[in-house]
Each structure stands twice: as structure tokens, then as C-alpha cells.
């Protein structure tokens, strides 16, 4: 039951975009058409799903206070948590580079459709914050961390596809010239955020 709870919670209640505003830059820049935004959403979900479990293991066995005790009891006092930022971003940058190479080798079609977005995911706040939230919330085991990563990715995917669909329709409406493009997207995202706030306190 815990897994389902974490899954639903990370999609709707703690939605990366509507509750925390993470990954906003690519969310605003790439949401012009549904097709490209769906591609980016899938790529982000995929990278989150790989990096969060790896960073979970890294955190559990190397970085957390007392995590080094499994090497020898004398290291039980060591606290390396100040290194976590550098370690997490290094893992993310390396995985993104590797995912890029693997996708290029085995699925050129997918590679061409994702193209420029893949390397940009390394600096997407949603991916980095997946690892940081995982560390801050202290999930009990790697399964919970993986479910959390999958849920956050799907939540991000839903948000970017939803706004892209709205923006496609917006092209046919009369908006004041100064508000066109980015301005109205901000305001719509705010309104959608309010709608998502109704999920607050939701528990399974």
C-alpha cells in the first residue's frame, strides 16, 4: 500500500511543476506543441527513473552520516553529506551522456526525435531535485525511491503535455499583444497550479 501511496502522491499532490515549480525552464521553452513536449516528458521520466535509484544507493552507502560503517566500524563517524551535491550532479551528467549514447546506438529514430533535449536534461531542475527530495524525505528502501522517481516523472509528463495542449488551442484566441507567448503561459500555469492544490492532503 505504501508504494501506491507514494506513487499517487508524487504524481498529483507533490507534482514537480504545480507544487514545486521545478523544471520550469524547459517546461516553458518546449511546450509549444504536444508532440515535442511528450518526447521531452518521456525523456525526463526515463532519466529520473535511472538516476534516483543510483543516487539512492550512493547516498545510502557513501554519503549519509555513518554510511561508511559497512567498510569498517572505525568509519562509522564519517559524514560525507556535504559532498552530495557534487556527487548527484556528476551521476546525473554521466547518466545523461550515457543514455544519449545508448539511445543513439540502438534507436536512432527516438534519438532524432529527442535530439537536442537529451543533453539539456542534465540541467533540468526536475531531475536534480528528484535526487535531492529523495535524500531529504529519507525513503525506506530502493523500491520506494524508484516508485517516487517514476511518479514524479509521470507528473512532470502530464503537466507539460497539458500545457502544450492548451497553448496549441490558445493560438486561435485574442490575447493582448504584450501578454502573448510567455506571459499568458505563466498565468495559465498559475491557474492550473491552483487546481492541483485541491489534491493537497489527499491520502490513500
Amino acid at each position, binding site marked *: 500500500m505504501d508504494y501506491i501511496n507514494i506513487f499517487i502522491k508524487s504524481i498529483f499532490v507533490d507534482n514537480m511543476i*504545480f*507544487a*514545486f*515549480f*521545478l*523544471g*520550469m*525552464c524547459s517546461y*516553458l*521553452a518546449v511546450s509549444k506543441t504536444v508532440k515535442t513536449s511528450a518526447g521531452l516528458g518521456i525523456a525526463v521520466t526515463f532519466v529520473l527513473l535511472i538516476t534516483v535509484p543510483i543516487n539512492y544507493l550512493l547516498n545510502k552507502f557513501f554519503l549519509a552520516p555513518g554510511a561508511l560503517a559497512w567498510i569498517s566500524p572505525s568509519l562509522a563517524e564519517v559524514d560525507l553529506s*556535504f*559532498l552530495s*551535491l*557534487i556527487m548527484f*550532479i*556528476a551521476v546525473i*551528467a*554521466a547518466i545523461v*551522456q550515457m543514455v544519449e549514447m545508448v539511445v543513439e546506438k540502438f534507436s536512432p529514430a527516438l534519438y532524432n526525435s529527442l535530439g537536442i533535449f537529451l*543533453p539539456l536534461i*542534465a*540541467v*533540468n*531542475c526536475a*531531475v*536534480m*531535485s528528484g535526487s*535531492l*527530495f529523495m535524500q*531529504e524525505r529519507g525513503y525506506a528502501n530502493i523500491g520506494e525511491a524508484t516508485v517516487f522517481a517514476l511518479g514524479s516523472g509521470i507528473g512532470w509528463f502530464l503537466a507539460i503535455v497539458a500545457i502544450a495542449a492548451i497553448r496549441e488551442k490558445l493560438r486561435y484566441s485574442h490575447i*493582448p*499583444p*504584450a*501578454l*502573448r*507567448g*510567455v*506571459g*499568458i*503561459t*505563466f*498565468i495559465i*500555469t*498559475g*491557474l*492550473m*497550479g*491552483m487546481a492541483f*492544490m485541491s489534491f493537497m492532503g489527499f491520502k490513500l
Partner: protein
Amino acid sequence: MSKRNWKLITLPFNKENPITVQILGICSCLAVTAQLKPALVMAMSVTVVVALANVIISLLRKTIPPRIRIIVQLVVVSMLVVLVDQVLKAYMYDVSKQLSVFVGLIITNCIVMGRLEAFAMVQKPWPSLLDGLGNGLGYSVILIVLGFVRELFGSGTLWGYPIMEKLGLYEIGYENNGLMIMPPMALILVGLIIWWHRSRNKDLCEQ
């Protein structure tokens, strides 16, 4: 200071503002501005990181192989962010707790990466420093305005000082607007700032 260098500092306040025009670094600007104090601390941290990272990358720009430049940039930036994080934890622990993961997220703040890619990789250290300072300060202005408005109307205080209570507004029926401290209102406020800014600068409007 020459005219060209002066422009590097002043342009980000107006026609090249990182938030309202370049649309960079939005995440942090929305999440930390419910009160003025964390907003100001965040603004200062980002300014320091952008300026120093610009200088370091600019000094290294001829030795960085283009294929791995993103990793090199990330390592330099994350080193600076770790320093800022440790300083905040040592001297301003309460604010550092309030900012939680957002200090760490300066690493992936698009302003930092954007300036490194667009400016520091091709320019000398001194203009890079000015460019970093200008963009950091342009970002700070928006953060401070947001923090000011949201704290004043959302919780009736400024820097923790109960200004609305001292003015006696509650006795004549004034109520705080609870929506202001909620995250979605930050987005709507930024949208309004963009609207105001673009209606004054017609050339920034999109088709």
C-alpha cells in the same frame, strides 16, 4: 568603465532581464519568494555564484575541450554552490532550512548555465565578471519585488516585522490575502510583471 562594459551591467535590468525576457531561472524565483528574507538571501547566493562561475570558466575557456564542457561547467558551478551552501548553514541556519533544496538547485539554475554557455565561454574574465554581476542583479530585482509583494499582502509583515498590524489595518476590517503565499500566485505575479514590462517595451512582444 567603458560604455560597452557599463551596458553589460545595465541591460539585464531592462531589455535582457534573465527572468522576464530570457525566461531563465524561473523555478527558484517562484519557490523562495513567499517572504522577503529568503528571497534576498537566494538572490545574493545566485549573484555570487553566477559572477564567480563566469570568471572561472572565462579563465579556463581555452583549455576546456568542447565535448565535455557541460560536465566541466557543472563541476565548477557545483563547487561554488557547495561553498555557498556551507556558508549559509554556518551563519544563517534558519534561512538555509527554509530554502531547503533550492540552494542545491542553483547548480541547475538556467541563468548560471545560460551565462556560462552564451558569454563566459567566449569572453575575457573582466567582461564576464560584469556580465555575471549584471545578470545576478537583474534576477535579484525580480526576486525582491516578488518577495516584497507576497510577504506584505500575504502575511502582512515585512522582514518579519508586522507592518499591517502596527498600521492598525486589521481593526478596520483588513484581511491578509492567503492566496499570495501560495505558490501559484507567484506565477501569476510574474506573468503580470512580464505583461507590464512588455507593454512598455513593444519590441519585446511575441507574434
